[in-house]
């Protein structure tokens, strides 16, 4: 890990200082230490235009930040610089996680949370896709749906919690409903705008090629809208975890949020950190999963990025 960071700093100084092309130049100067007057032509080669692209990806670049963060946390804890009541050491958190796991409480809480998030997400996904397709593909649907969703979007979803508790009771239903709403809005918005923003030139092409309406939708509109759909999907996935954190701290008898809420009452910061850690891992894993699917499905785009 240290070697990669070292080479990064090397690369950045190369880019900023016009001295540039480090490797080639050192070889050149060691060879021509006496004949400095041979420099001008070399300098001309060195004056390569500064690249504006961020350059090659570092290996496992996404992990570097988190790993560094944990290393700092561990180092500070080991050095006794952190108040263990406020921020317990990483190993304390891990030990607590192990204890909670062997008690069986952690696995129950995780399962409950996953179930809530999963159910809410599936419902939100379905609703978002169905509504966006209806609004994006028919003028009647657009007239009925789009304005309504835009209105819904303007209301902060978490502000609906009191009303939903009164409507649906304090059980699971209202939590799932809220998560579904948090999820469906970004999916709807992005898919709808992708569907209705289809390039007019492609509509013309479909007419010229004599496509039926069904084939036009299947072969041009839907594939063309997929990039927008994935943007919404990723926002929706993140949204489902966000909603969960809030909901499980309000009215729950199990779940990660409940576990953290209880821990707050007993001043168990390590348990709270276990909960945060697991939320973080779930968020990261689900986002990566969506990215992976996106890369597979939109493989035609890779030619632009790579």
């Amino acid at each position, binding site marked *: 890990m240290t070697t990669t960071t070292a080479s990064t700093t090397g690369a950045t100084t190369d880019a900023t200082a016009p001295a540039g092309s480090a490797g080639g130049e050192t070889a050149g100067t060691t060879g021509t230490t006496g004949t400095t007057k041979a420099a001008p032509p070399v300098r001309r080669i060195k004056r390569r235009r500064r690249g504006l692209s961020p350059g090659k990806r570092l290996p496992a670049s996404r992990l570097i930040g988190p790993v560094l963060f944990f290393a700092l946390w561990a180092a500070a804890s080991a050095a006794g610089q952190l108040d263990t009541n406020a921020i317990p050491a990483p190993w304390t958190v891990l030990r607590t996680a192990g204890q909670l796991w062997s008690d069986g409480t952690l696995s129950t809480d995780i399962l409950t949370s996953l179930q809530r998030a999963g159910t809410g997400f599936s419902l939100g996904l379905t609703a978002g896709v169905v509504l966006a397709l209806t609004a994006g593909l028919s003028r009647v649907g657009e007239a009925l749906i789009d304005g309504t969703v835009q209105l819904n979007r303007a209301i902060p979803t978490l502000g609906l919690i009191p009303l939903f508790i009164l409507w649906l009771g304090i059980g699971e239903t209202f939590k799932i409903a809220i998560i579904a709403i948090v999820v469906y809005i970004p999916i709807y918005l992005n898919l709808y705008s992708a569907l209705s923003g289809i390039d007019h*030139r*492609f509509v*013309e*092409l*479909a*007419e*010229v*090629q*004599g*496509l039926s309406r069904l*084939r036009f939708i299947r*072969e*041009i509109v839907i*594939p*063309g809208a*997929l990039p927008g759909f994935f943007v919404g999907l990723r926002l929706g996935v993140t949204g489902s975890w966000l909603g969960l954190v809030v909901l499980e701290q309000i009215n729950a008898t199990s779940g990660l949020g409940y576990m953290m809420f209880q821990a707050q009452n007993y001043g168990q910061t390590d348990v709270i950190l276990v909960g945060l850690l697991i939320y973080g891992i779930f968020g990261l894993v689900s986002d990566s999963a969506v990215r992976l699917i996106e890369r597979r499905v*939109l493989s*035609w*785009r890779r*030619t*632009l990025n790579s």
Partner: protein
Amino acid sequence: MATHTEQLTSRPGLADPTAPAAQAAPAVRLRGLTRSFDGRTVLDDVDLDLPAGQLTALLGHSGSGKSTLLRAIAGLDHEVAGSGELSAPDRVSVVFQDSRLLPWRRVLDNVLLGTDGKKAAERGRAALAEVGLAGRERAWPNELSGGEAQRAALARSLVREPELLLADEPFGALDALTRIKMHGLLRELWERHRPSVLLVTHDVDEAIVLADRVLVLDQGRIGLDLTIDRAHPRSYRDPLLGEYRERLLAALGVKEDHAGRQNQENDQ
């Protein structure tokens, strides 16, 4: 109007190079075609016959209505106000200025857009081979150069075996060298398949080198109908073509000295 009808009556003589085709029913027949946008008349009572199997070029300034005419024939102007009679074949293909390949479909699947049936893939491959893209079937459109993309678009129009091929400045976005190659390819494809072609262009030399007949659209009407009676392949430097160029440029309202300079530029 008088000169207009005069031209129409003199048509059979003018269309001589493709004599057998000219005697048959025209592929495209327009009578009194009028189109207007927001009250501005773009096509003004156009009468036109395109004989089957003829390669016709349509010249005009930008805004002269040439694209409007092409889109009317292609049936792409449902939202445009207008009147007049129009008959065109069933199998019409259009090549646009941009290749208009769907970025999410591989080249072969793009060529086969809207084409069904057994052996469709085989025909698609054959069409790609014909335009010199054999082996690129599995490529993504993003991976093609501008010229290659336009070749793929040509293959897509060919695979439908069109009776009428409408091309709206198909080489307008290409560099000069690629354009010359594409001229050769288009002429070659036309000779092999013999569809009726209407090539909309603003490039006088392109029209002269490729077409058997050049129309100049001026203020919504056919201002000049010129038959280019020269054997193919034609050279861009053929001095005999200079005479046609002068007449076309005059019809387009471009002065002679301008023409000379343009000529030099093209020779470089």
